[in-house]
């Protein structure tokens, strides 16, 4: 076995320090949550939103353009775009281009006339 010199010890300590920087991010609780199948992902998308998007996907054709409106996720929501793909998902800026409007988490969950109720929101065909 190689006998360590002081110089070698210092260098190995440097390696350990550098590794500790990255390893310090390890969070056993986060891993445990994941292994247990926590309902919330780290991006903050809750299970109800996923169910809402599932329902929207089931109610719209694959080539549809859907305007997803959600106060908690303003603008064009990348998560909705991913979930509803290959549908074209647009944000409020392109509201006029979308035949379908999916609204999530309205204060009053009661859908307006002509709209279909979805878990946590509703879907309206213009």
């Amino acid at each position, binding site marked *: 076995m190689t006998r360590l010199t002081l110089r070698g010890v210092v*260098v190995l300590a440097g390696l350990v320090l550098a590794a*500790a*920087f990255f390893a310090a991010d390890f969070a056993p609780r986060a891993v445990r949550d994941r*292994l247990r199948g926590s309902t919330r992902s*780290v*991006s903050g998308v809750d299970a109800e939103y996923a169910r809402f998007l599932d329902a929207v996907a089931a109610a719209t054709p694959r080539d549809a353009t859907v305007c997803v409106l959600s106060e908690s996720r303003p603008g064009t929501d*990348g998560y909705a775009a991913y979930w509803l793909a*290959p549908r*074209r998902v647009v944000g409020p800026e392109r509201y006029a281009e979308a035949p379908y409007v999916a609204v999530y988490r309205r204060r009053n969950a009661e859908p307006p006339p002509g709209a279909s109720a979805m878990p946590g929101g509703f879907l309206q065909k213009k």
Partner: protein
Amino acid sequence: MVSVLAVIAAATVCGAVLARVVAGDLSRGERAAWSVGLGLAALTAVSAAMMALHRVPGPKKLAAVAAVFLAIAALERRRPRHRLRPPRLTPTAVVLAAIALAAAAVFAVSAVRSGLYGTDALATWALKARIIFFEGRIPDRLFTDPALAFSHPEYPLLAPLTLASVALAARSWDAHALALVYVAWQLATLAAVAGFLSRRVSRTAGAAGALLVALCVPLWAPTSVGTAEIPLAFSMVLAASAFLDYLERPSGSVALRLVISAALCAGTKQEGIVFCVVLAACLVLRRGTRFRLAGSAALLVPAGIGLWVSRALVHGVSHADFDASLLSPSRWGELAPRLRDVLVHLVSAEIADAWVLAAGISIVLLVAAPSFADALVAPLVLQAFVYPAAAAAAAADPVSHLAASFGRTAAAVWPAAAILLVARSAATLEARRREPRRLPVPALIGAALAAAVVLPLVAGTRLHAGGPVTVAGLARPTFHRTVEPILQARCQSCHHEKGIAPIALVRYSESAEHADQVARMVDSRRMPPWKAAPGPHDFAGDPTLSWAEREAIVRWARRGAPEGNPSDAPPPRTFTGGWELGEPDLVLKAPRFSPDFSKGDIYQCFVLPTDLDRDAWVSAVEVRPGNRAMMHHALLYVEEGASSLKRDESAPGPGYPCFGGPRAPVNDSFGEWAPGMQPRRYPGGVARFLPRKSRIVMQVHYSALSGSVQPDESEVGVYFAKEPVERRLLSDDVRSYAPFTLAAGDPVAKLTGSLGPLPSRSELVAILPHMHLLGRTMTVTARLPNGTRERLVDVNDWDLRWQRTYFFEKPVVLPAGTVVELSASFDNSLANSRNPTEPPKDVHFGEMTTDEMCMALLFWTVDGKNPGEKNAFFKNEVCTPEKGPERK
């Protein structure tokens, strides 16, 4: 899951055949890594070729291609190849490798469990993969649809294509199973690092390298599953090892590895292209290496092709992450301070952690013996510098941009850096046996002494001039040392026991109890409530937290909200209810009023006679709320007539109801109060005019949400000007071209308006944007006579509850001829929870809650205006739709 695993395994078998050509003379670990890399790349290339030929690459077609390929490979005459004899396996290597594999197993299980949902970055990578999978082709809209601009159309497609190809071969999109692709890339990276170091150094070094890489949690965290960092790190390891091999023994096979690894780098991410260019540059500049130009070309050609393809595919879609114009020489002056901010953030915000990393790397580089891998120092340093440099050119706040992405992206460099560090460390241990060298003890002692002097100085440095957070305070935040000064300066004006905020944040116990909530609110920038975005002109009293303050609070909460030493606490802030500006010259008292919230919020106007027997000039106005808990805001107006008195007399009880305004012809506004608003004296020589015998009409909005039932008895403190008045504070408003209608259902109805041109030079002292419940954004801009535009205020998250007057730190000079322009957007859709009607109705201009307004009050002084003149510029002006202002 099984089908995805089978596809990856089949691709790896095919890749192993290719690896015999590319990496046949490498170690076993490297061959395994190349097998995975080449297999997945080949699957992706075949799938892409089929898509180009308008064929959907299904499992049968891909299996047929693989079968043909393997048959040809089997027919090939086996040529004897030089195989490396594996170095001796040591117990240390076994232990290190076992830990590395255990770490890899944790990642694998959690990645598969999380699937591709772990990160918002899936909007960039997995979104494209999913679209390609479902459409069975690479649709043009990935590069041309403005609605997909957020997903970076200019990014290379290798990672999404690989995911889509595996999914197509497996015939299903299983986000959890597809995480296995990332597991495969990770294991391949470990194998590549371990194999290379085993071959060039020793098995122990290989295991140590694998361990260093496996412990890089930011890279292997499930949040990176679905992004391109993991394949990028893998590609960079292949390129770095090929680069080092080329330096030692340039040959055709090594050049081939350079070409392929460069293609993988360039196809995966822009940073990969940068890494290829950096490696090529270092290769060219390295004297004594044979075939330098050929090696550089091997790196540059794939990088160039990757760049060209990325640019060629994108049409008409731009992403606003970076502002390329900052790179033009005329804007270098702006770039420099942004770069400085980013670098300060790097060495300050992450101070404790970053110094650990810097210390570790510095020790290895300074103390360890030189090694063959030192050629990687320059490329890796340059590569690491790319991230802060790119962040400096971010379109928005450069520090936020860096903070959001630095950890993950910098970690992508780490596996390649591990090769360098382990090689140097091993060389040090090896040197002991060959030629023992003395430790540079004097240098170490000198460094330690220097650190002992410098560190305390740095630790006490404030991260922002005048800010409460020091470097040490951020490194180990405690309540009394770090958080309490921030709360005092930014939060406690509302968050004290009798304040309007629902919770107090004065004592440690109450702050610690709400630590998580506070951290969440400040991290999401919902608190402190300041709606004006940073612009070219600073506002006075801006409570917005600096990144250091925000980071300190978040870290404090994350670390369990430690109290720290009470002796570190600043003197407590007092909330005695006294006047902030000192004793006023005149105090106007509103009558005692108890609002009845049975029908919701109350807007009540109180008439406050001044009883002045002569005209007066006022240099400041302070409102002292009688019951902060329920007061939402108070607006003051000057009235010379008697309309308000008549209304007051005809209404029961004190004051009269007055939603929307004073409901009386008033001369001018006189001041305002809102939670968190600090009273201010006007700039020297500037004053408001208060005519003799005039009355102040105070409109107060009482919030039913407060739950308070205590009566209110507010007061207005008036401070007369003591200095000669040179300029009168006047007010005008810029508003939308009325009348307007906001169509029902429209989430982004836009209104514009303008005021001017100004007849003479003026100085804008303050600005007050105003909309109602549907307002979302408002921007007020000055179009100067030379055609340039200066943003005056930009509210991009309007909230009626948090309206306020924004005073400029220094009055903004507006030359004669300036036009003030207003642009605002409204959300009249179902998604706006403040929308008062459901389903939405067309909304018109008006003063009721269910109506809308779109205006910004401008408080300014005007050159050449006699201070005694009552009227501002445009008192007799009206605005008409689409035509702009006209004079009567």
